[in-house]
């Protein structure tokens, strides 16, 4: 177990992406018991099993081959049930949005009608029996054997068929329902005919349309908002293909989601994660409602916000923003406040007069400005009391984490495409042994995402719940500093190993450190997410921690170094009075339930 988990050597490529929450490879779809992810980990034996606290396989990531196999399965199924060709079965399935049962129902209800609607003839008609035939498009006469027709027997020459098919394919997915060119005939033109007559490029396009149709017509499709397309074009979710000046968006993976499982978070193999429910980017620990509220607020406020920040000052007494569009410096706030103050120094007007250099000049302001009292931070601090400023406070941090996350994604790309190879070279390590670095970066990206949403969470956390707020801010602060540590190690310290001549002796220690930091940070964030998701209920429960799972994983995280030292500590401290039934000890300061192996509280870093 240990050795396998160590550096994820034994794991295949996919599991790296899935590690965040699921831990098992995405293909083991387990539809049944995914809901109770919070309570499934009471077996404290395999404490090194870092990642499987949540069984979330309520979705399957399908790549192109998987999609194709499913599609072929369905086609074969229909072909054998209805005793028709695969080509005909595909035409039927496409018409009925790839629903096998719908095809069955309709077909057996009224086969004749179905055939007419989709253009499937019962008896294929051959080409007219003549030596020479006239093409119905170019009106040229050709020998019989250079003519083609769909099942209806209407003859057209190969060149015209090619033009017809190519025009249709380049017009879009409508080519999947191609019919005989004869206006009076509705006979379907099947995949076999298209494939045999289309050019190589067109064939590839047709194949993609065919595959996409299976995904898009069949299931709930995630339509990412335009913004996301833009953002993710730069990364990996979608690979744009520009053909004939038309941007084709090719989705590389599809997600088969089984509704009713645990959470809605889906992490694609391209490592993009999103929420199946609201299709926004993944947003745990906050719920979909909060996300939509927050996004609405952002779009509504950002314009106003900029204006207010640029053009107004808060009343020094009631903090309402005031715009001064004309007049003198003597401001009287609107009722009920009615506070009279100086626009320049924001001091009470009653202090003004001859002493300040006359009513219409404020030398207090001039003097103070010279002393630097009114520098930016000062103003900021003062405005932070303002309710609008409160929003800005959260918004700025939310947005900063968002851009940090984008930066980290770009760094990760850079790491994977350039640095890993170089590092492998310098340190004489196979690239497979360097996965811990990719993992560290994936963790950084994920942490930024979580952190970002904690600011939306914080914004909506009721002001009057002081204890919760305090605890929340504490957790958030710790999360930030933990992430900084990881980031520092993955970025700065790594540089040291990149810019050397030969292999470094302490590279293995670096590996240990970074892998350890990654897992500690992962666990911390998982616990943070869980704590926020259940509304920081621990604060009310006062020590009655229900977070045994979380604490176990933290313990696991701290022992990830796998040194005999930490095991020794664990056995020595086992007699403490604070230890509960499951072998945890509650921190005296923050009440967090720590694993018995930990000597320092994982939440607040206080010694036991």
């Amino acid at each position, binding site marked *: 177990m240990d050795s396998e988990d160590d550096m994820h050597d034994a794991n295949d490529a996919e599991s790296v992406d899935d590690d965040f929450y699921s831990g098992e490879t995405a293909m083991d779809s387990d539809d049944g018991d995914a809901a109770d992810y919070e309570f499934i980990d009471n077996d404290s034996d395999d404490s090194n099993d870092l990642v499987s606290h949540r069984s979330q396989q309520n979705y399957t990531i399908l790549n192109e081959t998987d999609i194709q196999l499913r599609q072929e399965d369905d086609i074969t199924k229909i072909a054998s049930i209805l005793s028709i060709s695969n080509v005909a079965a595909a035409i039927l399935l496409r018409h009925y949005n790839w629903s096998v049962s719908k095809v069955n129902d309709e077909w057996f209800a009224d086969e004749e009608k179905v055939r007419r609607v989709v253009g499937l003839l019962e008896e294929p008609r051959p080409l007219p029996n003549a030596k020479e035939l006239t093409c*119905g*498009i*170019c*009106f*040229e006469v050709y020998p019989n054997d250079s003519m083609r027709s769909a099942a209806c027997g*209407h003859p*057209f020459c190969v*060149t*015209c068929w090619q*033009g*017809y098919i*190519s*025009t249709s394919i380049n017009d879009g997915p409508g080519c999947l329902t191609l019919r005989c*060119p*004869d*206006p009076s005939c509705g006979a379907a033109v099947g995949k076999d005919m298209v494939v045999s007559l289309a050019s190589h490029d067109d064939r590839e396009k047709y194949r993609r349309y065919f595959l996409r149709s299976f995904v898009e017509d069949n299931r709930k499709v995630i339509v990412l908002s335009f913004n996301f397309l833009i953002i993710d074009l730069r990364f990996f979710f979608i690979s744009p293909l520009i053909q004939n000046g038309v941007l084709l968006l090719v989705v590389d993976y599809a997600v088969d989601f089984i509704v009713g499982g645990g959470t809605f978070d889906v992490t694609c193999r391209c490592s993009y994660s999103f929420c199946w429910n609201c299709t926004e980017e993944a947003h745990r620990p906050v719920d979909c409602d909060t996300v939509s509220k927050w996004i609405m607020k952002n779009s509504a406020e950002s314009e106003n916000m900029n204006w207010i920040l640029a053009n107004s000052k808060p009343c020094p007494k009631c903090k309402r923003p005031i715009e001064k569009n004309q007049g003198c410096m003597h401001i009287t706030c609107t009722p009920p406040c009615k506070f009279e103050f100086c626009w320049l120094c924001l001091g009470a007007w009653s202090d003004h007069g001859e002493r300040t250099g006359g009513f219409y000049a404020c030398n207090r302001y001039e003097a103070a400005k010279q002393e630097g009292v009114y520098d930016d931070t000062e103003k900021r601090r003062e405005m932070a009391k303002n309710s609008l400023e409160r929003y800005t406070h959260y918004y700025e941090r939310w947005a900063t984490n968002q851009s940090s996350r984008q930066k980290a994604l770009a760094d990760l790309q850079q790491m994977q495409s350039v640095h890993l190879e170089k590092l492998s070279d310098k340190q004489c390590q196979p690239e497979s042994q360097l996965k811990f670095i990719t993992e560290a970066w994936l963790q950084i990206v994920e942490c930024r995402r979580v952190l970002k949403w904690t600011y939306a969470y914080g914004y909506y956390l009721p002001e009057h719940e002081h204890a919760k707020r305090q605890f929340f801010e504490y957790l958030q602060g710790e999360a930030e500093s933990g992430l900084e540590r990881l980031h520092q190690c993955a970025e700065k310290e790594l540089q040291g190993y990149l810019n050397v001549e030969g292999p470094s002796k302490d590279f293995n220690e670096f590996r240990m450190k970074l892998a350890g930091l990654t897992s500690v940070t992962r666990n911390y964030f998982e616990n943070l997410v869980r704590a926020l998701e259940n509304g920081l209920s621990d604060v009310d429960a006062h020590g009655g921690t229900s977070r045994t799972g979380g604490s176990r994983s933290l313990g696991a995280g701290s022992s990830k170094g796998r040194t005999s030292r930490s095991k020794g500590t664990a056995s020595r401290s086992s007699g403490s009075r604070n230890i509960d039934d499951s072998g945890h000890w509650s921190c005296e300061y923050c009440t967090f339930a720590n694993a018995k192996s930990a000597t320092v509280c994982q939440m607040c870093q206080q010694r036991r």
Partner: protein
Amino acid sequence: MTGSSASSRKVLSKIATNRLQKELVEWQVNPPSGFLHKVTDNLQRWVIEVYGAQGTIYAGEKYQLQVDFPEHYPMEAPQVIFLHPAPLHPHIYSNGHICLDILYDSWSPAMTVSSICISILSMLSSSTVKERPEDNDRYVKNCRNGRSPKETRWWFHDDKV
């Protein structure tokens, strides 16, 4: 108003030229009744006279259709409009644009100028009122600067007329 779209046309492909020559020959041998094509040396633009059919509200009237062929005719549909003055018809706009599905989405390369003409005459003949489409003014305003009807997203709501 069709001047600008005509000047930006590409010359006909070889396939298109061959096919149009055949159509022209066929037209001369066997012209659709009610139509007169004044043959010019411009193969790419046909101007066809349409005579309102006897027994319809357009009887005795004469209109002109202008048919412009694209480079990849017949894979692409020709552009067909009425020259001024366009007949008063619920599917014909005052700028000459015609709302008829076979000219756009339902075009098939197996159709011909002749079959288009017959469809248009049948559309004219089945009308019982002489009036413009409801959205005529808005549509025509949008089409200033010589926009082709092929750029319009047509909505074929009525197959009776």
